[in-house]
C-alpha cells in the first residue's frame, strides 16, 4: 500500500492500529510501524495528525527496542545456562545443537 496517496487521517488510523496490534506480543509489527511511518513522522512537512503519528512511532520504537533487548537477554541467559538447568532446559528446547565429532 502506498502511503503517499493516503489521506492524513487514514495514516493516523493505520499507525494507531499497528501500534495497538503490537501489544499482542508483536514487536515485529511495531518494527514495521517504525520503518513504515518514520518518514511520515519526521521527514514530512507538518500536518495536524503528524504529532500523534510521531508519538505512536516513538512508542513503537521504544517497544521494539525493549523487546529486542529482552529477547537477546533471554536467549543469552538460556543458552549459557542450558546445560546447568538440566531436564527443564531440555524440555523447553526447540533445537538442541548437535556436537561435532
Amino acid at each position, binding site marked *: *500500500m*502506498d*502511503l503517499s*496517496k*493516503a*489521506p492524513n*487521517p*487514514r495514516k493516523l488510523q*493505520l499507525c494507531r492500529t499497528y501500534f495497538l*496490534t503490537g501489544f*499482542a*506480543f*508483536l*514487536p*515485529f*509489527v511495531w518494527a*514495521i510501524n517504525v*520503518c*513504515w511511518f518514520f518518514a511520515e513522522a519526521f521527514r514530512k512537512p507538518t500536518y495536524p495528525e503528524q504529532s500523534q503519528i510521531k508519538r505512536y512511532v516513538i512508542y513503537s520504537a521504544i517497544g521494539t527496542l525493549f523487546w529486542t533487548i529482552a*529477547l537477546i537477554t*533471554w*536467549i543469552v541467559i*538460556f*543458552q549459557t545456562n*542450558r546445560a546447568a538447568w538440566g531436564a527443564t*532446559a531440555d524440555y*523447553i*528446547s*526447540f*533445537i*538442541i*545443537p*548437535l556436537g561435532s565429532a
Partner: protein
Amino acid sequence: MDEHDVPSSSAAAAAADVDDSQSGAAERLERPPRRQQKQKISNYGSNEQLERNNADHTDGPVLAVPYVVVRGTNSQPPRLSAGGADGGPGPSQQELEEEQGLKYGAQHVIKLFVPVSLCMLVVVATINSISFYNSTDVYLLYTPFHELSPEPSVKLWNALANSLILMSVVVVMTILLIVLYKKRCYRVIHGWLILSSFMLLFIFTYLYLEELLRAYNIPMDYPTAVLIMWNFGVAGMMSIHWHGPLRLQQGYLIFVAALMALVFIKYLPEWTAWAVLAAISIWDLIAVLSPRGPLRILVETAQERNEQIFPALIYSSTVIYTYMGTHYTPEQPLPTATSSPSYSNSTTTTRTTQNSLASPEPATGGSTARPGNSRAHQRQQETQAAAEGMPLVTFKRNLHGNEEAAGFTQEWSANLNDRVARRQIEVQSTQSGNGRLSNEYRTVTAPDQPQPELPEERGIKLGLGDFIFYSVLVGKASSYGDWTTTIACFVAILIGLCLTLLLLAVWRKALPALPISITFGLIFCFATSAVVKPFMENLSAKQVFI
C-alpha cells in the same frame, strides 16, 4: 513428519492449486482501457475539439456546453491525454506511445525478473542447504502412487496417474473458484485464501524454521521460537490480507510461493513432479486461452466488474489493489473533488460498440455490497445525472470496513462515469437513429478520473502459481546437484517470461505465463543434463580447457 501433517499439506496444496489456477489469469496489462479510450477519441475528435478540450481542462466544468458536434477528419488524429498525465499532443504520438509502451514494458520485465529470481533463489538455496527438502518420504494425499518400483514403465504410469489426479483436483478447484466468484461469494473466497495463507505462514513456516535451524545447528528454545513464529505469521497475514508496506507484502508473497514450491518438491515423487509441471502448463494454456476456459472467464468477469483479482493470489509490481482502501476518508466526503485543479471535466467521446460489458453492471451492482466506492463518486454521479437530465440508476453502495476494500479498485469507480457516458451515448444514438454508422458523435461531458494520474495502473501482475511452478522446476533441477542444469533452467525460464511479456505487449490480453517458460525450462533441463553435462565432463576430463 507424522501422519496428521498430511491432510494439512494436502489442504495447502489445494490452496496452491487455486494459486496456480490464478496463475495465467493474473498477468495482464492495465493499460488497454485507457488506450482504447484514447484511440476512440483520436479517431473522432478534431483539432479544434482538442483545443476545446484543453480549454475545458483548464476552465473546469464543461457541463454548460453539452451539445458539441464533432466532425470526423482525415487529418492526423490528435490525441487527448486522458489522464492529463501522459504525453502531450504531437504528430508522432503513436510512435511515442509505442516507444513508451516498450519502455514501460522493459521496466516491468525487470520488475518481474527480480521477484521471480528471488523466489527461485530462496528455493535453490534451501534445496542445497537443507537436505530435508531433498528426499521424499511422506506423500501427498493426491499422489497415491509412490513410484517405488525400479521399472521405468511402472514409474511412468505412476507419474501419469498421479499427475492426472492432481490435475483433476486443480480443475475442480478452479471451477469451484469461478463459480464462487461468479456468484459473488467473496467472503467464502477470502476465507479460503486466509485459511490457506494462514497454514502456509504458520504450519509450513514452522517446519521450515525447524529444518533451517537443524541444518545450521543453531540452538533455540521454544519460547523464542513461538514468539518468532507468532510475529512472522501475524505480520504476514496483516500485510497480505490487510494493509502493509508494499515491499513487505511482496516479500511475504515471494516467501509463501517459495514455501509452496518447496512443499511440492518435498512431497511429490520425482517423475510425478516433472509430469505435473508439463501438465500444469498445458492446463494453463487451455484455461486462459480457450473461449470457455475458466481462467479466461475469471479475468473477463474481473474486468467486467472492474475489480482486481484477490491480492493473496497475485504478485503485483505496483500498488494497485491495496490502493483502494486508502482513498476513502470518512472525514472528507469529497477527497480531491473540489480542491484539485486537475479534477476537471474532460470531454470523452466513445463509440456505442464499447458498452456491451458495462451496461448491466450498475443494475446488478445495487443488490450486493459494493465496498470501495466512495461517496464522492456517488454524489458526482448524481450531479452528473442531474446535469445531463438523464434518468440514471443510482444505487447506494455499502461502505464496509477497510479490510474488504483491499480487494477492489479505484478503477471501478473511476470508470463508472465513463460507462455512464457510454450508456448515454448509446441511448441517444439509438434514439436519433444514427446508430454506429454515423460520423457525427455527440460528445458527452463526463468527469474524467478523479485521480489525475495513476501510474500504478501500468503494473503487470503475475500469479503466485507461476512463481511456484517456476521455482519447482528450478528447485527440482538443482536437487540433482548440478549447477549447470540449474542455471540453464533459470535462464530458460527467464527467457520464457520475456517472451510471454513480449506477447503480452503485442496482444494486450491476459496470457498464460507458464507454458513458454516451463516448456523452455523442461527442454533446457533435460538437454543440459543429458547432453551438455556429459560433454563438459568429457571436455574437462580430456583437459581441453587447459
